[in-house]
């Protein structure tokens, strides 16, 4: 397969050279498998095979981009021509330049052969096991909406007119389950997901228990009174807040004045307990890869160290414009998109405290277990106002569940209000976070 990708890439560069422009070919071959089971029976089985090309043409500082799922010689030549046509309509920008060739890339363990040799039946069994464990956990687990297994296996090849060539194959697998707990008066959902680079690390029993536990503990929830309360956020919720923060740490947002953290490098922007790292080479990290979407080496970048803002993330373009070096964060979601600044594995470093100890001295507070509507928060101003549910904390102990409340605030104030960080680091896809304890947060209820 690598040979097929390389041939298409060479065709791109050859066509571009004949037309007198520089170009980059991004090629992806991606295979996916997903299985959903319900009551032990396979409900949906999906197998996908996808191949595609993204061409960036650099026509003396003018950029053109075209993608195609057709890698025939004719389609490739047409794509290059279309990209040149587009470049004639786009503005001149001297920072539109190809990345320079790279001498060496980090050596990473990102391919687990176990995934492709394991028989399909064993993979289905993992999803069945998660469902069985969840149903057996408690008779109130009334509905398992879906228990599933997914895997992706991808070859990426990037080459450009300056001689850059990068190629690698990676894979990972995921288990998930979503279910509903029901009693006479109420029904509540529970969800758990686990993505692993190593197939052997998938743990269906732990997954099933977690989802069941999450649903059961919320049964009988009522709303709370409007108040300002200290709170604990679970790792799942903390990780959601990291996605609201991430855009402000991107070099392109800083350059465009879309980051409130502009001009704050070196400043104390968060509580001392906060250390945040973007790590593209993290062992076991789902987003770990030797290079980014334009062939720049991935790396570990410390963003916030003990509350101090240390760095922003850059792709090749924004790095040149800011007089910085690419941090290997030129991300692409697929061959259909241009590279742009994005996170790899974003990790909020854990502390030493057991998560249960975080609440010991809270007289009245709330453990936030779920937030809704994070996509409606404003990533620029950082203002958020979210639907939430959780469990009241009374005299340091977990008490009754609450739902239908709102929590409101601002992500930059949020950073400063972190009082303590738990030791329970959890990964949710490419984001990882522990439990955190916050000073008062505005809770809207009855």
């Amino acid at each position, binding site marked *: 397969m690598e040979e097929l990708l390389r041939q298409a890439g060479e065709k791109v560069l050859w066509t571009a050279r004949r037309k007198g422009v520089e170009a980059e070919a991004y090629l992806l071959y991606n295979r996916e498998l997903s299985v959903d089971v319900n009551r032990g029976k396979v409900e949906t089985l*999906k197998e996908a095979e996808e191949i595609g090309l993204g061409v960036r043409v650099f026509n003396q500082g003018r950029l053109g981009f075209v993608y195609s*799922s057709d890698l025939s010689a004719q389609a490739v030549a047409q794509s290059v021509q279309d990209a040149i046509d587009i470049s004639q309509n786009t503005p001149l920008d001297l920072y539109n330049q190809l990345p320079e060739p790279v001498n060496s890339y980090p050596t990473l363990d990102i391919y687990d052969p176990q995934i492709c040799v394991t028989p399909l039946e064993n993979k289905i069994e993992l999803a069945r096991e998660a469902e069985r464990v969840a149903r057996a956990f408690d008779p109130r687990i009334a509905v398992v*909406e879906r228990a599933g297994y997914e895997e992706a296996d991808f070859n990426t090849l990037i080459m450009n007119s300056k001689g850059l060539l990068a190629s690698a194959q990676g894979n990972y697998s995921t288990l998930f389950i979503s279910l509903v707990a029901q009693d006479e008066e109420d029904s509540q959902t529970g969800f758990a997901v686990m993505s692993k680079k190593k197939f052997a690390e998938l743990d269906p029993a732990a997954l099933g228990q977690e989802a069941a536990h999450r649903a059961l503990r919320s049964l009988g929830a009522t709303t709370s009174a409007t108040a300002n309360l200290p709170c604990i956020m679970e790792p799942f919720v903390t990780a959601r807040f990291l996605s609201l923060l991430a855009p402000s740490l991107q070099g392109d947002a800083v350059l465009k004045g879309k980051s409130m953290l502009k001009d704050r490098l070196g400043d104390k922007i968060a509580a001392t307990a906060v250390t945040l790292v973007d790590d593209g080479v993290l062992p076991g990290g789902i987003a770990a890869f030797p290079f980014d979407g334009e062939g720049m080496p991935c790396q570990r970048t410390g963003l916030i160290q003990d509350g101090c803002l240390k760095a922003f993330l850059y792709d090749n373009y924004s790095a040149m414009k800011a007089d910085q070096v690419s941090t290997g964060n030129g991300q692409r979601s697929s061959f*259909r998109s241009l590279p742009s600044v994005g996170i790899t594995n974003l990790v909020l470093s854990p502390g030493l405290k057991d998560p249960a100890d975080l609440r010991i001295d809270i007289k009245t507070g709330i453990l936030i277990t779920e937030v*809704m*509507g994070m996509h409606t928060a404003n990533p620029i101003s950082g203002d958020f106002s979210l639907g939430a549910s959780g469990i009241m904390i009374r005299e340091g102990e977990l008490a009754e569940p609450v739902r239908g409340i709102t929590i409101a605030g601002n992500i930059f104030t949020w950073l400063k209000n972190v009082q303590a960080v738990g030791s329970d680091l959890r990964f949710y896809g490419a984001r990882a976070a522990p439990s955190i304890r916050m000073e008062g947060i505005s809770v809207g209820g009855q």
Partner: protein
Amino acid sequence: MLDKHELSNVLSQALSKGGNFAEIFIEEKRISNVLCEDNKIEKVNLGREKGAGVRVIKDGQTAYVYTNDVSESGLMKAAEVAGRTLAAGKEQNREIHLTPIQSGLQFEFLRLPEDVELSEKIAQVLSANQAAREIDDEIRQVTVAVGDTHRQIQIANSDGVFVEDESARIRLMVNAIASRDGMIQTGYEVAGGLCGWEILDTVSIQDMAQQAASRAVAMLSAEPAPAGRMPVVMHAKAGGTMVHEACGHGLEADLVQKGLSVYKDKRGEQVACRELSVIDDATLKGKYGSFRFDDEGSPARRTVLIDQGILNTFMNDRLTAAQEGAELTGNGRRESYQHKPIPRMTNTFIASGNDDPQDIIASTRQGLLVKKMGGGQVNTTNGDFVFDVQEGYFIENGEIKYPVRGATLTGNGPRVLMDIERIGNDLGFAIGVCGKDGQGVTVADAQPTIRIKELTVGGTGQAADKIIKRIRRK
């Protein structure tokens, strides 16, 4: 695209291992996007994509295989994989006779995406950028994007359905950011439809830009939204995010059948106040959620979901309709050939009532007026929903007093439908891309001006029943 004979062969292959139903969905798409940010054309994209998905259903189990290889041999391979993936059954040789299905609907596409020069799209985008920036020097950043999709599809299934269709969709978007003393507010406008670029004859992207910029600036002077429970008036201009979240998703048959909807077992029962009807209608001309055929080849329909308070029917696809022997509602949609179809909304709205919108506001003693909604989310199991308010005002003694910012509304779908006190005689649409099971599809939603007895407003301000402290953030 393949001919009828080739498609029949692929379907026979897919069923050769004993499946009950097989379907081919072939899609060819041409997509282009132009984006301006930072006062310059930042991105121009052009994409061509071809792909096909083969689905085989056997005893309620679905196998779905997709590929970019849309030749007959590529599809035969996909059909073979899909067919053998499900537990092996008796070998069969079923001959499929395909009959073209016609639609009574004709939508016009006067200026197809490829008939419009890139330079014209760029000129439109740049002039909108200019228009937004001229509103006020507190406008710090403007993003303008236009995009179009030209799509051809072929659908064939083992029931003999054969559909070929072609359509275009256009989308226009403006986001403006205003800032004052370290505070940032944004204004957002989006428009689009199932149409060609003739949309510019009726929609001005420059006007959209001015509205977005004016709203961002106005919200700089807004008060923090009050927190607490209060009456909420939703202006028709706010669009129908609320009906989409509060009841639409819960009426999708897959969620109902899995026991994940609060509306399960409620057919024929009163689920809303007597004056309220909710309709899903894919046949509306030019709307963003419209189509001639859904993505399973079923003709588009107008479906009354809630009829004067009574739950009439759910939205289904072939699989869920077969499950309960229901009539197809034409709601089987998918994002692309990479996805299996599932029940989805199209254009969903609350039907207009009789009240004068002005009077609805004038008769409100105290509450929140929502003039523009943002995104939302719902937990279909218990009906709890949340969405954010882009443009809101505080109402006191029937008068619009001052703008408020940062408000989020949370409520419970079934309860809100019972709690609608007034329904206006107007109707306003909004468009969006709705996400479900990792698939995004184009939708529109609408509602008249309505008043809800009580919703929880989340904000950073003080509780509304106390005296509202007017604190401006410096």
